[in-house]
């Protein structure tokens, strides 16, 4: 792919994530197709789109409850995601995981996690297993800024560094630890600086630029695969929506969302492509194809039967 082609592909990939999230939101708000807690990643699309192209089929991705975008970018079909959110039999976990806790190991997506920070030690274990099973696996684990204040995160970062395990720790810093500003909850708001304390490389990355994310993740994955151990990447981004659907966001600061809408990845890349002379029709096509795909995926998901209550007790034990 040349530069423009790559950037158009990224725009389309980011629109796929956004269109998926907009569709899920529509279903959650409009009726009873999707119920419960839903955490959208609108505004944070550059992270998954930039990072996932750098993972191989045997690599293991661990995400958070804000994980629809990471799942989609990793190759999990949109229909399976929407059906999962809607409690359908055809959901990736037949409705058992829901929006916030689904997994699709057949796509190298080893799950969202609804416990803040819990995915980090699990990713360390996936990398550890790779040391013995000959897979050459790299584990990439995503967390938010707030998750780095969990004890489990500290334990995982330290153990990965001590054992030089192939883990890429990606922190999506959207400034809000749920409803509380991260800079009031830490003594050092530049979270990437913690990497030095663990003895691993760290970097702050423009998390609204898929190309910048890709470059950083490519370096980190290469280092991990070559035995160089883990890396901590802090992707600076923002969520344009609430922590969850229904969050009234009274905590937002004056002008914050206006600024965020200028800096968010889709607006930025759209502007950059237009400025580079890419025809408006091609830019719009990236959006329209994504929206059409999600309309179709949602229709198929909602046409499927609900999960069968007769199976609710299955699979507790082997």
């Amino acid at each position, binding site marked *: 792919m040349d530069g423009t082609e790559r950037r158009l592909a990224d725009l389309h990939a980011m629109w796929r994530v956004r269109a998926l999230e907009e569709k899920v939101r529509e279903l959650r708000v409009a009726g009873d197709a999707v119920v419960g807690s839903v955490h959208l990643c609108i505004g944070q699309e550059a992270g998954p789109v930039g990072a996932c192209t750098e993972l191989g089929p045997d690599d293991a991705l661990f995400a958070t409850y804000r994980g629809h975008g990471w799942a989609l970018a990793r190759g999990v079909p949109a229909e399976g995601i929407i059906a999962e959110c809607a409690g359908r039999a055809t959901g990736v976990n037949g409705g058992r995981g829901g929006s916030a*806790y689904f997994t699709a190991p*057949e796509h190298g997506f080893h799950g969202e996690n609804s416990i803040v920070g819990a995915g980090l030690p699990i990713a360390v274990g996936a990398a*550890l*297993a790779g040391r013995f099973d000959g897979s050459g696996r790299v584990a990439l684990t995503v967390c938010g800024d707030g998750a780095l204040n969990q004890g489990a995160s500290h334990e995982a970062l*330290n153990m990965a560094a001590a054992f030089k395990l192939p883990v890429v720790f990606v922190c999506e810093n959207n400034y809000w630890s749920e409803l509380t500003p991260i800079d009031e909850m830490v003594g050092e708001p530049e979270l990437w600086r913690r990497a030095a304390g663990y003895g691993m490389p760290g970097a702050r990355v423009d998390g609204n630029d898929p190309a910048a994310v890709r470059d950083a993740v490519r370096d980190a994955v290469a280092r991990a695969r070559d035995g160089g151990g883990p890396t901590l990447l802090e992707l600076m981004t923002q969520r344009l929506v609430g922590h969850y659907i229904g969050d009234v966001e009274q905590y937002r600061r004056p002008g914050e969302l206006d600024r965020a809408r200028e800096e968010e990845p889709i607006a930025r890349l759209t502007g950059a492509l237009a400025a580079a002379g890419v025809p408006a029709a091609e830019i719009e096509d990236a959006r329209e194809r994504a929206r059409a795909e999600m309309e179709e995926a949602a229709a198929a998901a909602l046409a499927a039967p609900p999960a069968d209550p007769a199976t609710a007790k299955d699979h507790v034990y*082997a």
Partner: protein
Amino acid sequence: MPEPTTQVAAREGAGAAPAPETRKLKYGEAVNAALARVLAEVPQTLLYGEDVGKPGGVFGVTRGLRRKFGERVFDTPISEAAILGSAVGAALMGARPIVEIMWADFSLVALDQLVNQAANARYVSRGAAPAPIVVRTQQGNAPGACAQHSQSLEAMFLHVPGLRLVMPRTAQDAHDAVVAAVHADDPVIIVENRTLYFGDKAEVELGGAPRPMGWSHLRRPGRDVTVVSWGAVTDRVLEAAAGLAGRGIEAEVLELPWLNPADMDAVLASAARTRRLAVVHEANVTGGFGAEIVARVAEAGIGLAAAPLRIGAPDVRIPAAPVLAEALLPAAGPIADRIAALVA
């Protein structure tokens, strides 16, 4: 969408079960022998935890295994969440991690990885991504142990669907529990007891096919009362039962090493026969698994001739001074007296 199939890649390439042999071993040595067996037999096993590798464990249970099996046996930082969480992640990738939590009390700093992660993995993925980890730990009071090194926590884990739990008391059961757990496809917590590690040697049958989980032992037949027990306190129950025989009371002692799956059929059959029931555990009475045993017997409609009896530590913290701790823990004399009163 096809129903996902259970991932049981873990034992691919596993060697044949070693030939049966009998050796005289202490409880801790029997665990060591079982770990050596599964490390040799199941190539996907890993063995790790705090001081487990080069030091051979604070109780010496894993001594020599690092030398024999190399890097598959290793030490970790003092990080229970990382130990249990990494075990979950490794198991999701097809490994068979056997991890040690030095004291059951320490699992409390990392319960998330057992309850929210390991126990959910199979269920939520409909069997596609189970986390068959084996957690070895040890619990209970020993003279001088502080309140944070004395608790009996099995009931807490037994409240969680998805987790298996066994509390071996004999060298044979300690050995067999490890072998069974590694060959099971569920997360299994093995709760050992440090007061037993260095006891007398006993004949232990090694090798042979792994036993399926859930066995129980009829330790003493009797017609007058069913006494159900597990863990180290069962020694005191057997002492009490021997004393009761001298008073003309025949107690049937049923030991349940496995509490999930528990051999409830054996409990119900015995209770229906004797029509008297006592449950003895070292754990606190309130919310203890003894309450579940009593409830199951009641639910089965077994008409008891006397009100059932729960014997355990009273609902108190465990003090360090041995004289204080002994005032709380079930002892053979009081166990015998309370059972005698039940039968009278």
